[in-house]
């Protein structure tokens, strides 16, 4: 992991949220949202992050952006440990990392015009004033394929896809290097989804961006990502490059997840082998012993419920956390 071209390096990050109860407001347990995660993202690549709801994907994304104070571990962005930054240097650093939200209806302030929404980061970071500001807002609108005159409209006048474009324009305003896309297309219709995916891919090329792409739709993640990490209950269970993961999934959870996705071609889908997982994801307050996945695993054997598996390299870029590999 000593590559020079690593942009974000996440080392043993833990994010526990306390569960507080009783009149004494005592901490009775922890929600282990992110539990000892290490990964890195190279400059110019898209790392996909998949997993079921509640597995900690969004929390991990926010930990990387330092929107939470992590419980332990390090997040290193361009060689700088974010935990050590405070005040002005941190503000400067924040310009380089942005977030695109999932729900384009909830994430835009209904009382601000599209132009104000997009321009706000420019003002916050003192990047543009006067005519320069208006020019930049117009430019950003055209980058996301909206018309500059739409700057005066309010969010309710836009469709879901257009709102998501506004969210993207806002994220791009300070010319960031790194963007966390948190389920950017899951609230959109199929035809609009394809448009936004294309926009994100084109922008990445043009502006040499790096993405962390969080989603639960495995086909979308595969399409857009260079490498993919699979999360289960706050831990990374498998990480490798995109084609390898889908052609040769090794972790039983990845296998089950992939086989659950129906393929939109009936003749192909009928021939696929399916692994149906039983039950729901366990609670991250009280995770199972040993390997967190063992109660639902189809390959579970003796010992899986005792020791927590480490992320092991099985050749090339392929890392898996499973005793049965």
């Amino acid at each position: 992991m000593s590559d020079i071209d690593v942009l974000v390096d996440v080392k043993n990050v833990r994010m526990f949220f306390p569960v507080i109860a009783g009149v004494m407001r005592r901490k009775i347990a922890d929600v282990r949202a992110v539990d000892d995660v290490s990964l890195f993202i190279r400059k110019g690549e898209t790392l996909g992050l998949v997993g079921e709801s509640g597995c900690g994907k969004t929390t991990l994304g926010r930990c990387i952006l330092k929107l939470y104070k992590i419980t332990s571990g390090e997040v290193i962005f361009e060689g700088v440990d974010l935990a050590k930054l405070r005040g002005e240097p941190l503000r400067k650093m924040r310009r380089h990392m942005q977030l695109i939200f999932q729900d384009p209806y909830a994430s835009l302030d209904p009382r601000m015009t599209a132009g104000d929404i997009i321009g706000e980061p420019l003002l916050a970071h003192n990047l543009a004033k006067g005519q320069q500001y208006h020019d930049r807002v117009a430019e950003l609108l055209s980058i996301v394929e909206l018309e500059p005159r739409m700057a005066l409209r309010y969010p309710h006048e836009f469709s879901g896809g257009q709102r998501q474009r506004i969210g993207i324009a806002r994220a791009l305003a300070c010319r960031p290097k790194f963007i966390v896309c948190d389920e950017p297309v899951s609230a959109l219709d199929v035809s609009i989804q394809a448009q936004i995916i294309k926009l994100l891919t084109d922008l990445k090329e043009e502006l040499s961006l790096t993405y962390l792409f969080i989603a639960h739709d495995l086909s979308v993640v595969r399409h857009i990502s260079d490498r993919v990490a699979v999360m289960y209950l706050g831990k990374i269970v498998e990480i490798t490059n995109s084609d390898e993961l889908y052609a040769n999934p090794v972790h039983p959870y990845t296998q089950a997840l992939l086989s659950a996705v129906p393929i939109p071609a009936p003749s192909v889908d009928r021939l696929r082998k399916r692994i149906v997982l039983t039950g729901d994801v366990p609670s991250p307050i009280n995770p199972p012993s040993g390997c967190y996945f063992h109660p639902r695993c189809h390959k579970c054997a003796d010992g899986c419920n005792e020791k927590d598996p480490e992320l092991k390299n099985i050749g090339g870029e392929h890392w898996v956390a499973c005793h049965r590999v």
Partner: protein
Amino acid sequence: MDVKNLRTYFYVKEGELRAVDGLTYSIKQRECVALVGESACGKSVSALSILRLIPYPPGIIVGGEIIFEGRDILKISEEEMRQIRGGRIAMVFQEPMTSLNPVLTINRQISETLQLHLSMDKETAALEAVNLLKLVGMPDPERRINDYPHQFSGGMQQRIMIAMALSCKPSLIIADEPTTSVDVTVQAQLLDLINNLRDQFNTSIIIITHNLGIVARYADSVNVMYAGRLVEKGPTNAIYENPRHPYTLGLIASVPRLDLPRKKNLSVIKGLPPNLARLVPTVCAFSPRCKLAVDRCNKERPELEMVEKDHYVACFRSSEVNQLVEDG
């Protein structure tokens, strides 16, 4: 059931909104029919029309017939309709959390249907409710029956909804986006469950979804809707392997596929779905977004025509659609 020329309009400030405009399809016993389309294409409204649950005003079913078990359910009295609703035809809604009553135990909610439609007494109904929960794969139903909806996960809540839908052994279940709010693994569990129950009880299913993968896996036939009208309908295999409407083709091509090598770019249907209030009913609604549109598409509205056995398409240029495939 036969739906013939169903038309449901909404009268709003902007004018007449033709949410469903001339929908015709039929569903056989034990068949699973999918209604596919993007949001606001009229798929949910057409389902609510079947149950006569369209809020009036502003909505009204202005015409058509829905023949169900020999009767036109648009003509029967409200009293008779109440017998059918929840009894012969049941519905599974999209968001279980908002469809279940948060202040009643699930026992109350499942038993209510049983007491009402099958005139069971309270105790028998409670026992039957436990059986239903067992049927839908709820672990430990005897203990959980007196829990409240918030104590269940999303997947379990949707199982409860399915149990309620099944309670009176309906002959038709309408599932409106039953799995959009759950994860893929749970989605697979739920859909397999619905599919097994169909075999067990000979129920017909209308599944409303925008997920083309689900349709491919579970549906026998597919109806593709656009702007309130059917643009293509036919057996599932025919629709996927030989789509003849440019919109259907565009939809299929715009979803990335796990089984094929990665494409550099997804093909994209340009533009936005139309605003129903501004729709001109005499032309093809898809023409502004269509790559094959010609003059005629802006002058006349295409009607469904048969292109092969059971496969109907509403497009003047359906024979040229293959050209799009070749162009990528």
